[in-house]
């Protein structure tokens, strides 16, 4: 229930955002606790970015209510703004300015001491490149700078919109580690992503968004148990490999028969993946 519990950082109740006839977000409700990483997965246009826009006070909801850190995102957004931050989907940096100048700009806007800039540059490994213009940075360096910028005000709620999109595996891993570290320090992280593995690895809970609605919200493990398919890969003495659905009585009977006949060499059981869960719920893969 909205308003209950001090540890709730994000409280959303029947949130809706319509653009003309398009229902970008439609009757969405959820909460996020302090220090929790909440992942939101969905196709393009599912309403992920719109939800972030509303929760960061940059778009007025058409219906419902949302509170971030106890502040109404419409009526109290000016009080909320200094306490939150966002890593944008686009690498929206000032490319003619240096990395340091980019961070100093936002340090000044948030009223944060300049020492924080050097601290963050060191934290994201950009101290040596700090004087260089951002247009000379690699995509990974820009993304790390974006994360540093989003941490400039030590936000209590950090929104990340596709933070690892287009990054090489090493840079993506670095960004994920930074996110994890923030959550460990008590920051609530609201993350949208296209990558199932990322959501599975990072998030305490995951919400699946389809056509502006949340179709499932739980821990990755619970989602997989509830909606995923348990399967087993069986290698027979004939060197033939069979994939069986353990919840299917016919497949279970086949496995039992092969075992009785001594035809089974190995059996590997497999847990359902988030991808399977998403396909089951949304009808098509990401």
């Amino acid at each position: 229930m909205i308003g209950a519990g001090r540890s709730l950082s994000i409280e959303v109740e029947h949130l809706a955002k319509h653009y003309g006839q398009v229902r970008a977000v439609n009757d969405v409700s959820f909460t996020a606790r302090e220090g929790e990483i909440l992942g939101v997965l969905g196709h393009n246009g599912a309403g992920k970015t719109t939800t972030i826009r509303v929760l960061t006070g940059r778009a007025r909801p058409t219906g419902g209510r949302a509170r971030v850190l106890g502040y109404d995102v419409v009526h109290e957004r000016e009080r909320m703004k200094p306490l939150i931050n966002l890593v944008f989907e686009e690498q929206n940096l000032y490319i003619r300015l240096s990395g340091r100048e980019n961070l100093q700009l936002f340090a000044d806007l948030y009223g944060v001491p300049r020492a924080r800039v050097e601290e963050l540059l060191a934290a994201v490994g950009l101290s040596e490149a700090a004087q260089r213009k951002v247009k000379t940075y690699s995509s990974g360096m820009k993304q790390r700078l974006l994360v540093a910028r989003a941490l400039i005000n030590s936000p209590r709620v950090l929104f990340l919109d596709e933070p690892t999109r287009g990054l090489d595996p090493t840079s993506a891993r670095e960004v994920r580690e930074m996110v994890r570290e923030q959550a460990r320090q008590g920051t609530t992280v609201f993350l949208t992503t296209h990558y199932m593995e990322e959501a599975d690895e990072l998030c305490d809970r995951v919400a699946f968004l389809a056509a502006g609605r949340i179709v499932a919200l739980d821990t990755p493990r619970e989602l997989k148990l509830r909606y995923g398919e348990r399967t087993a890969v069986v290698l027979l003495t004939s060197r033939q490999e069979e994939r069986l659905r353990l919840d299917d009585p016919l497949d279970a009977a086949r496995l039992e028969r092969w075992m009785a006949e001594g035809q089974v060499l190995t059996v590997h059981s497999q847990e359902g993946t988030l991808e399977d869960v998403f396909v089951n719920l949304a009808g098509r893969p990401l």
Partner: protein
Amino acid sequence: MSWPRIRTIYRKDMRDALRDSRVLTAILLPLGLGLLYSFMFSDENIRTQKAKVGVVSDGTTQLTTVISKQTGRALRLTFVAVPNAPDLEQQVQRKKVDVGLVVPPGFDAAVKAGESPQLTVVLPSSPSFDSDYVDAVLDRSVQALAGRAPPARIVLRSLPPESGGATAIEALGARKDFILVSIILLLAMIAVYAVPAVLVEETEKKTMEALTLIASTADVIAAKALFGIVLSIVSVPVLLVITRGNPAEVAALAAAVVLSAAVLVGIGLLCGGLFKTQQQVNTWSGVILLALLAPAFTIGMPTPAAVNTALAFIPTAQTFRLIANAFAGRALYPHEWLSYAVLLAWAVGAYGLLWWRLSRQEEG
């Protein structure tokens, strides 16, 4: 709105602008044109005619001084010494001089003695107004040299200029007139090209979204307005220094420039809100720039009354009038209060519309 945030964004804009070729072009192009004009044109009124006269003489004659007095302000003469008559004919032929005079030795004394010495005038095959004019004043000049009283005493009475009667180019000369045009170009380029380009880039590159996470849209717009106005206020004196533009009334010029910069930047910000891409800025800013520049070229020209009335509504027309008056130190264009009123009306309109748009955006 928060002043510390406006100041922070303004400083960022300034730092970024100095590395942005589009903004630098918007400033350097008018400065360059102003410099070029200042070398191309002189301070003299364009109606002042000039003529070069080749003279063959022994160097003792006072005839050239007397001719200069006779032509006065109507024709400014430059005398060039030529060694002999054949050379003089060649120079007239090749149009190196407009007209030639062969003054024999002892000419002045012979004239005074009433000996009627020969004075040869070499005219080109197609004499110009200037050469004919020199020819026409010779008779009077020689009579003056001979010390004869003119048949009538001619008294000149120069009337003071009628208020509003002279155009800037007539009153200030071509060089200063083009400096005024360069000032208008500079203000317009900064306002309707540099400012929208900077604003559109914020939208296009989504840096605006990062700024408005903490600042308000109004803070960002106010910073852009400050950026445009300061850039204008700094650039105009630079233009005046490099072009040796020397206004008679500095305070009046400053007031006109500051108010005009504020108005034009307001228009530029409105455009920046309408344009979505840099390509749109490049296309449409050119059209707006032409509309803003037109009055600087047409004011004072013999245009139909309806055109003049229409021009009066364009802010740069009023800017031109005010800065022309400031340069001349007198009211070349009367009713300065009307110019200020038109500019203030534009300022209220532009910033009022901006405020309305921002309010809608903030609510959106």
